[in-house]
């Protein structure tokens, strides 16, 4: 079974600064996908960024980027120029193909607070 570990239950960052959220995972699969989701208090899951395991290049979406280290099974999220609206729970998630459809497993989350 796949496990996803987020070792930082809570983090805080000053507005406009940079913060990095950590994630490690355990799998024997070679083909898989990794995601970071943002969940505000409304509980709506919002996709932040995704990474295909077969791609060596790290994914980037505006102020969000990842550091994907496949050998180390590490997938960290960097948020640059932090904004108050970035305050939320952030979940790292692992996806693999199982029996013809994709299955997504989440970590326990990191609560990020952006301080004015």
């Amino acid at each position: 079974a796949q496990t996803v570990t987020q070792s930082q239950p809570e983090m805080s960052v000053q507005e406009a600064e940079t913060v990095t959220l950590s994630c490690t995972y355990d799998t024997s699969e070679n083909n898989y996908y990794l995601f970071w989701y943002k969940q505000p208090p409304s509980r709506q899951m919002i996709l932040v960024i995704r990474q295909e395991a077969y791609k060596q290049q790290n994914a980037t979406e505006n102020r969000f980027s990842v550091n994907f280290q496949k050998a180390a099974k590490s997938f960290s999220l960097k948020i640059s120029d932090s904004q108050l609206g970035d305050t939320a729970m952030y979940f790292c998630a692992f996806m693999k193909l199982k029996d013809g459809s994709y299955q997504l497993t989440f970590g326990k989350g990191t609560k990020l607070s952006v301080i004015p």
Partner: protein
Amino acid sequence: EAGVAQSPRYKIIEKRQSVAFWCNPISGHATLYWYQQILGQGPKLLIQFQNNGVVDDSQLPKDRFSAERLKGVDSTLKIQPAKLEDSAVYLCASSLTVSGNTIYFGEGSWLTVV
């Protein structure tokens, strides 16, 4: 494009009562998921459907939880009888299978068992 629809958004019931949640996935999405998210934790997969067949229900407490997706479109998740520890947000999600693997989530159904 309409998103994943869920209802009801909020429900409060007493323990030992029953409750049902409904989900309508994005049109054309063959895969439908039900997740349980207890406060302070990450979502846990309860059941996954591919069309109207079950792919994985290994974490579904089958003595009290049931789910169906009879026509391969919308789905219902039922809890009977409810326990206090079932208080959680129940998230429905859907995805295409072949041409894309992004999973889209609904807004969730909040359940409080008192």
